[in-house]
């Protein structure tokens, strides 16, 4: 039968861990509250180990709904790493101290489980359910600080945007199903030409099926419409322009560790689904609607440009980082646009490297905010004197995000640019590098007060050991993966090539 429990092991570990934590919370709140962060780290490590064990045993099971392959493993590791780091950061985050701690961490584990499902789902229904699952948990986590007006407002905004986006996406899935008669992602391509039966009288374009026969008239309008609608939902997930509006509010209002999680894991999960759909429809997408890459490119360019330009004028560090994450989504999206093995591998590499440096950046901001109680750029003045180590850490993460070698962000951008140039997309490459130059100015807005400004307030001393550990890990990855990305690149290629043997 098709019940492959082994391939579900990462998801099951996460789900089980979350439930266990809720039960423990019911038994002893104090005890569960104290061990919750470390228990979460243990669950994350176990889930990552389980996922890595599946590297050599790719399998599609549960009637084709679930695919675990190296592609999934890379995402699962990103999610697990984000979970562990965010759990450690949350342990040292003051506003959460009065909140329900066991439930917070169990929700965090559950949302990781949800995004893991997104990365492994190969059935439209499961994809939708996983997206909804992760979104609903995210709304709760963003609004977790019940006493905080900003947090509640952010949760509500996020919810409204998310509900609208996922409804639109569901319509897209419905259209796809209507055209193909299947919800199996891997069967979509083979079944697409059947759409002529439904819409043949309206359409005119001749379609060549992957088998090479002319299948008759299929209206590209419907295929385009389906993808456009799906893209709304996924664009929202990766916070690409113009579906980005929720991100700055949510990141600002949410507990900052949650913002770190959303900007890394949630975004990566959106990319996972995008990539899966693009892989599955690779042939038909090109044949029926060749310019799809142009639309994706437009989104990418808009995200990069708007992200950095609007980010520059922000005065709240969390909003600034939110716009930076929008710009990064655009940059990573360029890898999808390139539509080559190199480009797709570059997206994976980008997401891994981005996870390390962005969790680091948000984490440092959270720690600083925890001590100073402020996220305003003005209060970062003289941080280089008040806490040299924290300031240096933040400087490293920001310079990494700006793409300065030899830090992680440089190789991430370099690899995307390589993919663009390799395909001959010079214009996009030029836009991308110009956006990165302007982005430097964005990050310099934080560096400047930290190092050039006069210190305001007293020196900071207290630093939670758990948060410090998380930052050290982020720093090591930001530095080491930047200096030596060889294995990461090799893994990304190994994950991509089997999925797209034909290009």
């Amino acid at each position, binding site marked *: 039968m098709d019940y492959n429990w082994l391939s579900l092991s990462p998801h099951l570990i996460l789900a089980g861990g979350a439930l266990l934590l809720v039960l423990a919370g019911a038994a002893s709140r104090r005890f569960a509250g104290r061990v919750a962060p470390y228990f979460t780290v243990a669950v994350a490590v176990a889930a990552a180990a389980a996922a890595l064990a599946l590297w050599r045993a790719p399998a599609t099971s549960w009637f084709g709904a679930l695919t675990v392959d190296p592609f999934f493993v890379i995402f699962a590791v990103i999610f697990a790493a984000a979970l562990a780091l965010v759990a450690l950061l949350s342990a040292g985050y003051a506003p959460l101290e009065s909140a329900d701690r066991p439930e917070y961490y169990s929700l965090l584990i559950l949302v990781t489980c949800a995004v893991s499902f997104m990365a492994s789902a190969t059935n439209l229904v499961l994809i939708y359910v996983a997206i909804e699952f992760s979104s609903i948990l995210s709304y709760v986590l963003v609004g977790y600080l019940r006493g905080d007006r900003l947090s509640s407002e952010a949760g509500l905004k996020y919810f409204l945007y998310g509900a609208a986006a996922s409804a639109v996406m569901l319509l897209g899935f419905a259209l796809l199903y209507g055209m193909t008669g299947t919800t199996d992602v891997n069967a979509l391509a083979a079944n697409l030409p059947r759409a002529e039966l439904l819409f043949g009288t309206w359409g005119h374009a001749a379609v060549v099926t992957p088998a090479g026969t002319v299948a008759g008239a299929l209206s590209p309008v419907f295929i385009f419409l389906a993808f456009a609608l799906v893209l709304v939902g996924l664009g929202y997930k990766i916070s690409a322009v113009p579906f980005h509006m929720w991100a700055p509010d949510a990141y600002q209002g949410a507990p900052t560790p949650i913002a770190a999680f959303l900007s890394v894991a949630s975004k990566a999960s959106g990319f996972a689904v995008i990539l899966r759909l693009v892989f599955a429809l690779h042939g038909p997408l090109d044949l029926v609607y060749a310019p799809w890459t142009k639309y994706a490119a437009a989104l990418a360019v808009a995200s990069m440009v708007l992200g950095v330009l609007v980010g520059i004028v922000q005065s709240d560090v969390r909003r600034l980082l939110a716009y930076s994450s929008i710009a990064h989504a655009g940059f990573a999206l360029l890898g999808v646009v390139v539509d080559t093995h190199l480009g797709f591998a570059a997206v994976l590499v980008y997401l891994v490297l981005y996870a390390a440096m962005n969790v680091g950046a948000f984490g440092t901001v959270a720690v600083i905010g925890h001590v100073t109680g402020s996220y305003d750029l003005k209060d970062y003045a003289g941080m*280089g*004197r008040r806490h*040299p180590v924290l300031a240096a850490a933040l400087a490293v993460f920001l*310079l990494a995000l700006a793409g*300065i*070698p*030899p830090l992680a962000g*440089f190789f991430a951008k*370099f*690899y995307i*640019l*390589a993919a663009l*140039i*390799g395909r001959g997309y*010079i214009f996009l*490459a*030029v836009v991308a*590098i*110009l956006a*990165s*130059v302007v982005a*430097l*100015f964005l990050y*310099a807005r934080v560096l*400047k007060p930290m*190092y*050039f400004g006069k210190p305001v307030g007293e020196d900071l001393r207290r630093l939670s050991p758990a948060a410090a550990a998380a930052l050290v890990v982020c720093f090591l990855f930001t530095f080491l993966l930047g200096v*030596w*990305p*060889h294995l990461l*690149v*090799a893994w990304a*290629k190994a994950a991509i090539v089997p999925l797209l043997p034909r290009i």
Partner: protein
Amino acid sequence: MAFPILTLTVFTPLVGIIVVLLLPERWVNGIRAVAVAFTAAALAFSIWALAAFDPKITGAMQLEELHRWIPSVDIFYHLGVDGLSMPFIILTTLLSFLAAIASFSIKERVKEYFALYLLLETGMLGVFVALDLFLFYVFWEVMLVPMYFLIGIWGGEKREYAAIKFFLYTLLGSVVMLLGILALYFTSQPHTFDMLELMRQRGTFVRAFQIIVFLAFYVGFAIKVPVFPFHTWLPDAHVEAPTAISVLLAGVLLKMGGYGLLRVSYPILPQGAHWFVWPLAILGVINIVYGSLVAMAQKDLKKLIAYSSVGHMGFVLLGAAAMTPTALDGAVMQMVTHGIITGALFLLVGVLYDRAHVREISAFSGLGVRVPVYVGIMSFTMIASLGLPGLAGFVSEFLSLVGSFPVFPVLVIISGAGIIITAAYFLWTIRRMFLGTLTPRWENLPDINFRELVTVVPLMILTVLIGVYPSVLIKLMDPALTELSRVMATLK
């Protein structure tokens, strides 16, 4: 495997950073001593490399180190030197050592200063030894970060503006260069970032491609040189930077543009270079004449020297454009002598500024009476900078002009005007500041001290040595540059 002398040279300062960071912040003198010790060690290693280097071998790199680094993207850790890079390595380690001593005048945040300073040195050295374009780019960019902070934290009044302007300008140039690097990678078969391998494949690059990629690299290099009209960051950065950083900026960073042109653009993209010869020569002359004229109009002494750099770099461009062996010798030599002389000039401006806290030329008069040693050294250096025969600056400008004359006779004659203007503003400055009656305000101005003498005197000795016996330098680089000239002539 040979002894990795180049790796040692490049990464010794990086080890120094770790030591500096481990020292407590209040041990100011300890931090200074450690930093100077590590720059001295780098200097020693570079002299060792010089001793092991045989300038007569051409057409091959020496002291090569080649290791796989990121094999999944064909990136190698490839270092090596030839007659073109060797002088710059010595120049970098020497100036870094001297400027580290000059940095003792930094009183605030000493620990951070020297950590960044040492990072800057590693970045600079790396650029001159890297033979893999990816590695080259990494070192090229690594320099920007410490430079940004060094100007922004320890600089003058408009430091924040100057720092971000420097950062954005040079970053813009280098990312455009990055596109050129990637274009070369994908055009080469098999794909490679290795400079030597790309040189072997240059015959396969079509002319139009060479021109486009040449221009991409040119943007990166021209901003660094700086070539008119990309020079506007330079006066700001120079004036605002602390003394030691101005020295490195003028002495080393400005050389990277010219070095990159001769190391990367010429041998890998010869047809692109030939296509760009005329614009390059004309821009060189514009640099010479325009830079000198603007220098003449300056009221701030440091700004005057900054613009004099723009003028001096013009000779580099002119010599490079002519491509004759003599002109190339002149171009490279001009970079080295400019590093020595202008480095000394910036050190001396710093000496004066540390005491007087003003740099306005008009604020000084008759200093010769009060601080004779300082005025003697400063006049000597200014005269060396304007190209007095017998001193280093003359030899390089002369070689550059003589070598260029057969190719660009008219342009060479026009550049003569630049030399006259340079002489005029330096002599005029000497007259205004050092001669005449002493301004009463400076009656108690102390003369140059021993530590400051230590930083300047080695540069003066080199100025005289190269001026009187230029063969020490020419022997080192001529074989490599003659070979480059020959290669360029055959690939027209």
